[in-house]
């Protein structure tokens, strides 16, 4: 294998695409994880739901991809609120431990997934859209891929502004950092929680649309991504949103660059998933509470 013939720029670009989708999917999960202290396994189904919402939107109003993305964001956001109010809030009010919430989210996820199977059928669907492919210098791109990367970067920026500059954003950070203290300071936990579920699920919805546009629409669309997403969240440390953003892109890049290694050693490229995971295992063994979290902050 001739190293000079490898198009590193292309791999880098591919890594950005992968990373962007991971970021959109992981961010919402980490938001709810940090506030309610449990991994919401049904988050995978939020991704799929967004993809289907966009599909319905495109059926009604053809060719308007932007509209479908917005509809996906809003409807999945509402699904997030609904899920919180019906399933997770009652449980946490009863004093359920995080493990109970996790298991409940597993059941809820199954319910959502198979309801989607029932409603939309088992065959995979696609958006009837054409994204033109062209060259930018040595890199091969399509309009969809550029859209994915740009949208994610813009959202990163918006998120940063939101968290650092707006009052609500600051309240969210305070709540995530130290719940009791934040509430003592008068922050309304309930309102913030609703907002977090809305945004988190909504972002997942957008991630789902992009993922579906890149691949296909199916109820297990989100589930395919769950292992990398969990690796990202754990690596980043749940509460540190910036670390999670970084992890998402890092893992996206690692996955793509690892293909080169795998093909040199004549191994199956199915293993690229494993590489991210091995890194995760090693980090956890050395730092059982995640890369960016100090041992003292392990749980509230």
């Amino acid at each position: 294998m001739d190293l000079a013939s490898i198009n590193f720029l292309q791999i880098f670009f591919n890594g950005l695409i992968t990373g962007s989708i991971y970021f959109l999917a992981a961010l919402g999960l980490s938001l709810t994880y940090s506030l309610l202290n449990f991994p919401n396994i049904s988050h995978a189904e939020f991704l799929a739901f967004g993809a289907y919402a966009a599909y319905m939107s495109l059926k009604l109003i053809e060719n308007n991809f932007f509209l479908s993305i917005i509809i996906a964001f809003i409807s999945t956001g509402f699904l997030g609120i609904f899920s919180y109010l019906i399933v997770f809030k009652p449980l946490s009010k009863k004093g359920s431990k995080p493990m109970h919430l996790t298991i409940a989210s597993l059941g809820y996820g199954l319910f959502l997934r198979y309801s989607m199977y029932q409603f939309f059928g088992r065959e995979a669907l696609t958006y009837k859209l054409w994204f033109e492919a062209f060259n930018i210098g040595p890199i091969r791109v399509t309009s969809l891929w550029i859209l994915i990367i740009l949208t994610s970067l813009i959202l990163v920026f918006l998120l940063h502004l939101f968290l650092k500059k707006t009052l609500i954003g600051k309240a969210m950070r305070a709540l995530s950092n130290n719940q009791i203290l934040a509430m003592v300071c008068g922050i309304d936990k309930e309102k913030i929680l609703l907002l977090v579920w809305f945004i988190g699920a909504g972002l997942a919805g957008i991630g789902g649309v992009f993922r579906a546009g890149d691949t296909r629409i199916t109820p297990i669309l989100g589930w395919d991504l769950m292992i990398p997403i969990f690796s990202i969240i754990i690596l980043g440390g749940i509460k540190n949103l910036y670390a999670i953003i970084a992890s998402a892109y890092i893992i996206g890049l690692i996955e793509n660059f690892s293909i080169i290694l795998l093909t040199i050693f004549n191994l199956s490229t199915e293993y690229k998933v494993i590489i991210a995971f091995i890194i995760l295992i090693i980090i956890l063994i050395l730092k059982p509470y995640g890369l960016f979290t100090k041992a003292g902050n392990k749980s509230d």
Partner: protein
Amino acid sequence: MLYKKGNILKIIAIALIFFILGILIGYYAILQQTTYVSFKKVGEIKIGVMLPLSGELGPIGSRMLKGALLAAKIINDTGGINGNYIKIIAEDTLALPEKAIEAAKKLIEIEGVKVIIGPATSTEVLAISKYVNDREVVLISMSATAEKISELGDDYVFRVVASDVMQTQAIASIIEEMKYKKIVTFVVANDYGIGLEEGLKKLLGGKIALSIRYDPAKGDYRTELMQVSSINPDAIFYALWVESGIIVFKQALDMGLENIPTLGSEGMADVAFFKDEKAAEYILKTGLTGSKPSSPKGTLGYNIFYEEYKKYFKEEPGLYCEYTYDATMLAALSIAKASAYNGYEIKKALESTSKYYIGATGHKAFDKNGDIILAEYDIWKVSKSIDGEYFFNIIGSWNTVQGLLMKKE
């Protein structure tokens, strides 16, 4: 520590209630398609069918079922077997070995079938092979092509389609014919794809410059495809399942691979690929050429099947329909020849009946391992007709006796 009698009774009672509750919940669980197709109730002869009727292979499986139904209908319409009518009992396995085991149990223990048509995939066949042999039930698969099934030897497992060992020879002969010297294989990471890849490696050795196995769940194959293009092979060989295959082809077009010729196995000869514009354009531009177990369109056997199928179902037969038809026909004829509705007798009858059966897919004589002796493949190429319809044009054939024969243009 005394174990109170009351406690044990309570536990047994709860256990029973739970089991019944479980079955009652099953009672409200349903089915939208009828699994029973009985034509008349005079005397019934049951033939079981195991196929993926839902799930990723669901669309293909539901069409394959029609092949079985057609065979049953033709026999029943002409008086059945000595006045007894064939009843097809279909079970959905979702192409999963776990479900296949459950489906087989139901068919054999509850329905009492002695012949099963299917399952469709090799891992399913292997998962139930011990069971059907223990129970002496004949199994005829229409599409399980793994090499390992031949190794089961002389038992109750038969298949009307050849092992992929043969298909790799057909593909290798195409590669020779087109004078390709550098090939890349790009296969789905399961027994089907990996089996073909390993088979090709044995035959072509050094010609294969790169092998990629992809995870159908991943959906992100850009870098793999980039690797392929950087090697600049003479051709790419694909062995994919439709759902993830469409994604691979979409991304291949996006990554600019449309100038490299492509080859495929029978899984690629599926009209479902045409559903997606980019995938369709990619396979047309690259002149996707491949092999598939033959549907010998010129022969009388196939034409009879085709006419009846169109008349009854009013649509084109799908992939492996004709193989399911042949398997069912063979089963029915063997039951007729056997002296009793009993697995051992049916097996003996099948071995002899197969020697003179020429069906929709040609000769079905079995060897001692339950494989067909004559393996035959169509060589196809994707084309577009004048009215813009994509279709698979048959450009040649390959069989174990004559090797590769390409049609003259």
